[in-house]
């Protein structure tokens, strides 16, 4: 039996695999159903010393996204007192200039009374199939108007029709921004308050 390991090396290795297989059932029996589809369960299964099945069963459960996770840019608007949507964007065009793959198109609005350009976007398009999720637009925006979203469920059947986002899909309230990026939103709000304070 001294050469057992040499002769039956494959068998002993398969034994390890078999052990893992049975271990998944043992762990599930011991830990119970709370291992799946709960926040604590996902957190426990993410750890490096986890045992048993650690697959994140995506449509039913999701890995928690870190705050700095970024997919697409969106436009932040402040909600006015009467429910109006005050876009922070001034159509300055810095985001479209810094965009490396050039996927942002902006049309500046004109004031209907005077005919002069007004600081609002009339149209704002982002081709989400070109966007490379770099976050330069959010980085460079001087008005905190464009921010990176967390929503990654964007796949679709067509490219031109459904994958060029306009203002209606891009506009999201500031409360949504605060919900996905609380630390960033608090820091930016503090910086704005500091700037707005009259100099002593």
């Amino acid at each position: 039996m001294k050469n057992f390991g040499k002769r039956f090396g494959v068998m002993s290795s398969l034994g390890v695999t078999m052990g893992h297989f049975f271990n998944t059932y043992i762990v599930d029996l011991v830990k119970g159903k709370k291992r799946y589809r709960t926040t604590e369960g996902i957190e426990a299964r993410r750890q490096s010393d986890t045992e048993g099945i650690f697959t994140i069963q995506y449509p039913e459960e999701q890995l928690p996204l870190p705050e700095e996770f970024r997919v697409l840019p969106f436009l932040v608007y402040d909600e006015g007192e009467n429910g109006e949507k005050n876009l922070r964007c001034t159509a300055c065009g810095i985001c479209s200039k810094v965009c490396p793959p050039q996927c942002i198109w902006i049309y500046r609005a004109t004031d209907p009374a005077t005919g002069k350009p007004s600081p609002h976007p009339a149209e704002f398009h982002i081709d989400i199939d070109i966007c490379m999720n770099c976050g330069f637009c959010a980085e460079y925006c001087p008005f905190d108007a464009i921010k990176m979203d967390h929503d990654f469920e964007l796949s679709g059947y067509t490219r031109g029709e459904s994958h060029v986002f306009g203002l209606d899909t891009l506009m999201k309230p500031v409360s949504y921004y605060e919900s996905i990026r609380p630390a960033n939103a608090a820091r930016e709000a503090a910086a704005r308050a500091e700037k707005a304070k009259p100099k002593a």
Partner: protein
Amino acid sequence: MSPEGLSKPEYQVPQEMQNQVALTTLDRLYNWSRKNSVWPMMFGLACCAIEMIAAAASRYDLARFGMEVMRPSPRQSDVMLVSGTVTKKMIPQIVRLYNQMPEPKYVIAMGACASSGGPFKEGYNVVAGVDKFIPVDVYIPGCPPTPQALLHGLMTLQKKIESQSLKEVSWYQKGPGEPIPVPVLGPDLIDMRKAALIREKSQPVTEPEEAAVAVEEAAQNGELPAKEG
């Protein structure tokens, strides 16, 4: 087997038989079995392929969707995951592989490069969107899409497969289907056989001694840094 996925709500089953009988259509049964065994072709082009590998590994586990069998041959695969930048040199091979796949076949353009060219959309050597050459079923935005976004794209494809009808699908129509024309990579302007001839013609006609003298003179005039020592 999910009952809401298979049974057809239009057909009324009598109350006493509801636990024994399930009614469905051939379309639903066929599509249900088809969508749960979509085998991808095993090839990756760029960084998106790394995310595809991550999606196939045990953390996200494509096997839950019946898609874990990556086939190295186009003859055995159902879906082509164009995962990454498609160069002009690669597109003839991709179209050829697409033509070699058996019907029904699907194409997923994964990531910005495959969908539209992405950051290289105006590049000299990159195809700006694989949909100009082969029919794409699902576009997944992202650079690269995370494994979860890829899974969402595959689920979108499953929804498309579910919605197809046996009567209308192209691969059950009469006669053979037309293959997609394979693009031809144009002749390269560089011809290395002529390079020696060109180099011979362009060499300056200066003798070695003359050249050395010219360098010395230049050094004395202060045009070139003089040698030390």
